């Protein structure tokens, strides 16, 4: 038998780490020196691969782990790693496909919870950008407000998750027992990097509308039009102003642009 090429050997080894099914084939390529047989040697690598990646997923998705329980989480993550192996040099991104994977598995609540925890990770190490200050607003000429565009800070995510998922996440964070009661409605959540670290906050309807418009690249005026749907006319301006101030004070807006003088 001729020696395998490096690429063949590595393809075989990778398949072995993923599934273990080709153990006998790979073991044929391994020297069983010192009376330690090849499969025992290979086991070290396969165990380490799974332990390492499970530990990374457990660290990144602690509320999901608590919600599912150790055993179910372990099984689901083993299945996830088969379908979505790592494509990043850093283990930091091992969970990137998990929300999508869980949604495809028809587990919408678990997918929501994974999405929320992934957004928290993004808030931790998203790009830096100087936040737009409330004071900077004073320098915008009144005529410019009509066409004013804001940009969300890179750490910002806007999510809609089921109320139950938010309750579960909150209870986990407070180290309280997880709630059983299901709440049907979805809640809009703002996730961003506060000075103290990643933060999550439930948004008002007006806050949700405004932030969604900013993320869609709409102007402040367009956002107010959206907000006017279902809002008493005289409440639109104060609600828009309050929501804008809230986003500014939390450092969630990074930039602004307007055309004209």
């Amino acid at each position, binding site marked *: 038998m001729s*020696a*395998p*090429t*490096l*690429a063949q*050997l*590595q*393809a075989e*080894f*990778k398949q072995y*780490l993923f599934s273990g099914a080709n153990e006998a084939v790979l073991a*044929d*390529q*391994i*020297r069983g*020196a*010192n*009376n*330690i047989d*090849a499969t*025992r*040697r*290979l086991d*070290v*690598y396969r165990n*380490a*691969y799974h332990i*390492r*990646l499970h530990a990374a997923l457990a660290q990144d998705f602690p509320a999901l782990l608590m919600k599912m329980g150790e055993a179910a989480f372990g099984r689901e993550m083993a299945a996830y790693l088969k379908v979505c*192996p*790592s*494509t*990043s*040099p*850093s*283990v*930091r991104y*091992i969970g990137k496909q998990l929300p999508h994977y869980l949604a495809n598995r028809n587990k919408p609540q678990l997918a929501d919870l994974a999405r929320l925890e992934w957004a*928290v990770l993004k*808030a*931790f*190490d*998203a*790009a*830096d*950008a100087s936040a737009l200050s409330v004071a900077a607003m004073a320098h915008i000429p009144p005529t410019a407000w009509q066409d004013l565009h804001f940009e969300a800070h*890179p*750490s910002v995510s806007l999510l809609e998750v089921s109320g139950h998922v938010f309750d579960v996440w*909150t209870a986990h*964070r407070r180290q309280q027992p997880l709630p059983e009661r299901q709440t049907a409605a979805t809640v809009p959540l703002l996730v961003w*990097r*506060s000075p*103290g*670290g*990643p*933060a*999550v*906050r*439930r948004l008002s309807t007006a806050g949700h509308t405004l932030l969604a418009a900013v993320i869609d690249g709409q102007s402040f005026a367009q956002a107010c039009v959206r907000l006017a749907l279902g809002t008493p006319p005289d409440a639109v301006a104060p609600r828009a102003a309050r929501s804008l101030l809230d986003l500014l004070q939390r450092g969630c807006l990074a930039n602004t642009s307007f055309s004209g003088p």
Partner: protein
Amino acid sequence: MRGEVALDWFELISENFMVDGGKPLAVLDAVCEHYPVALHGVSLNLGGSDPLDEVYLNRLETLIGRCEPVRVSDHLCWTRHGGHHLHDLLPLPYTQDTVTHVAERILRVQDRLKRQILIENVSSYAEYAHSDMREYEFLTAVAERADCLILLDINNIVVSAHNHGFDAETYLRTIPVGRIRQIHLAGHSISGPLLIDTHDHPVSDPVWRLYAQAARKIGATATMIERDDAIPPLAELLAELDMARTLHAQEQAA
């Protein structure tokens, strides 16, 4: 962070800082402001058959520009295949063909980064049937051919010598000591007949003994103990990074 920690330099895992911003890069800048750093990578895939990852090299180049490290190192192993990262330091066949392949890749990386890199010997648990060199012959041949430097991990020598039945002192006698620029020490654990490189035990007596021999041969060399529950100042730094990952979330508004 001020320069009050009694350490000469910091070794940073390159991949931990290949993120866009936030706390990791703030910690990086704070460390670099007061200490020399060595960048230690785990995913360069020098022994891989996938092409060298240009995106990874770009990020490494950016990181080097940001912290001006005194040394840049990675491992003599493979870590990815078919676009999939395996997050482990996997063993290579020790043959002349592999020497040529790996050395060419190291030369390309050194050209790209405009500096010599250090390659580290890894702990291994399996050797391939078609290997026709010893690990120390392989390391020597690669380092000579690529004209690169060496990060010698003394614990990894002890672990691999035990697992594959070679003589650790012969290892030390064979390799080109003039290329060694850094040393790693660590603890290992015992799993049946195999020694496993786990970084969660104190440095063992055989490792200290081999280190003493190496130190006599090599002279003063930057040495670091890899320990996961480590020397206090470093542990504090890592704990800080970890703590920042745990939430500081504000209370939910009503």
